């Protein structure tokens, strides 16, 4: 069979024969390229359920594969491998190994909500992208993404005080991810910033670093949030373990 769109097929799935004779018909040359026969046996039948247990993934089952998400996607426009429609398809089919091919880029969703805006089935694909990247981390397929480190730092500060302080977020995030604070572009930015700032404002910003902004009487809220998160984590653990036992 001639394969006209070879670029659509992965090289490892193409087989070319120098000389080939089928039923006494010489098919060498143009007619000698075949798509490798495959059969998938390693389905994870629980995959969709696992992913829907992570924050944002609840509506993955609604998808009917129209492709509006990928078509509108901000990240897809700069990296064609970033393909939400395809990942939702794989997750729903249970094709875990195929999904893992893109595990390094799924976390890069920028949450612009274009997909959720256009989705005719209210899948909230943006949430599914977050659920997918959390699932990848929970299953040990990828280390924590930069984005996850950022989210955790953010969440932690809100949990402690009800508010965030941006300077602390930046410092702790760079610390967590082992990045140097002294990068040329950051230094220039801070210089530009300080250039214009009045002394009183700098003083106030310094104070907010020392005395963190806080919401008063926050402890009950903190406790109630922690309780909810613990419950959710238990539910997720059950779903993930249930799968591994079967």
């Amino acid at each position, binding site marked *: 069979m001639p394969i006209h769109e070879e670029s659509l097929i992965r090289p490892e799935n193409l087989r070319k024969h120098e000389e080939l004779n089928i039923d006494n018909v010489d098919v060498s040359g143009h007619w000698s390229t075949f798509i490798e026969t495959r059969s998938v046996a390693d389905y994870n039948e629980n995959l969709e359920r696992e992913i829907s247990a992570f*924050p944002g993934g609840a509506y993955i089952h609604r998808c009917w594969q129209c492709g509006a998400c990928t078509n509108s996607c*901000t990240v897809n426009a700069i990296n064609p491998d970033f393909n939400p429609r395809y990942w939702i398809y794989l997750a729903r089919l249970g094709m875990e190994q195929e999904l893992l091919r893109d595990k390094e880029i799924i976390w*890069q969703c920028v949450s612009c909500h*274009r997909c959720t805006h256009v989705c005719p089935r209210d899948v909230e694909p943006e949430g599914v992208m977050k659920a997918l990247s959390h699932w990848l981390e929970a299953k040990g397929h990828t280390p924590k993404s930069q984005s996850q480190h950022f989210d955790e730092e953010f969440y932690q500060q809100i949990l402690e005080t009800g508010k965030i302080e941006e300077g602390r977020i930046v410092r702790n995030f760079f610390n967590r991810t082992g990045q140097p604070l002294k990068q040329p572009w950051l230094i220039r930015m801070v210089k*530009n910033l300080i250039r*214009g700032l009045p002394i009183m404002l700098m003083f106030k910003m310094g104070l907010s670093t020392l005395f963190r*902004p806080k919401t008063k009487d926050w402890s009950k*809220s903190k406790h109630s949030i922690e309780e909810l998160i613990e419950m959710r984590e238990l539910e997720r653990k059950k779903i993930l373990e249930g799968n591994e036992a079967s």
Partner: protein
Amino acid sequence: MNDRTMRDDLQTVAYYPGCALEGTGHAYNRSTKRIAKKLGLNLVEIDNWNCCGAMEVKNIDPEVQNYLSVRNMAIAKHKMGMDVVMAPCNGCYHNLKKAEHDVTHKEETRKTLKKMADKTGQPEYKPGDVETIHALDWIKYAIGEENLARRVKHSLSGLKIANYYGCMYTRPRHIFPEKDQGEGSESTSKPHFMDDLLRAAGAEVVEFPLKTACCGGAHTLSDCDTSTRLVLNILQAAEACSADVIATECPTCHSGLEMHQIRAEETLGVKTQPVMLYFTQLLGLALGISPRQLGIHENISQSLGLLRQKGLV
């Protein structure tokens, strides 16, 4: 048209500045309060507010994010007796709207939030207790273009402005049921409130196709290369539209554009001209407020220099 869209219930609104306006968006906070004073509008800050969770907490759990939002809304309604909450930050605005949507449409959300409110001894938030509006809605409906034009002391004429609204102000459409409702309402595909107001202040508003493009704000530090590329698209498009200024209405977009403009120059060697100003700073200038009181010196891009060059300062 003004008469039909004007509202008289916005003279006093609950003000939810959010964390960014106490940090990197300080100038936005300052200029918003200044123009309120100048226009005779009353902002009452929400008592003992908490962070809305920005773009991060929903990834830990969406209901926690909703809890953070409704706590503020319930305080505004039940402790302060307010009917309208005004949030100038797109992130805060988006999250309060999202919480309103979920409380209205999802039984599960209502149950979870009721439980959390009971445990923390807070009043339960019910759908429609408050109406959340953006700073753009606030000026548009409380003052209106005609009124604003009458109050202009120093016209912004000669200033070419590209209006940048970002993502969270219009997407996803279902959490903004009041948008796309015909004449007088905001559009989610081609928002125009900022265009309307700045035009009324005398500026030349350019046709800008990337009004609602993404600046990569959610990953501004965690995926710098992607953010720099996305910001560069926006800056170069504004430049191609011959804009001197990109007007912003969100602290995350604003600082994202400023940061990655520098980063694009440092890491890719691409220099771009437009400077960033909050729409409240621009309106303030037109109303005759001094640049210092509007925090224009706090901007990272050389906005003061451009305004001087244009004879606006």
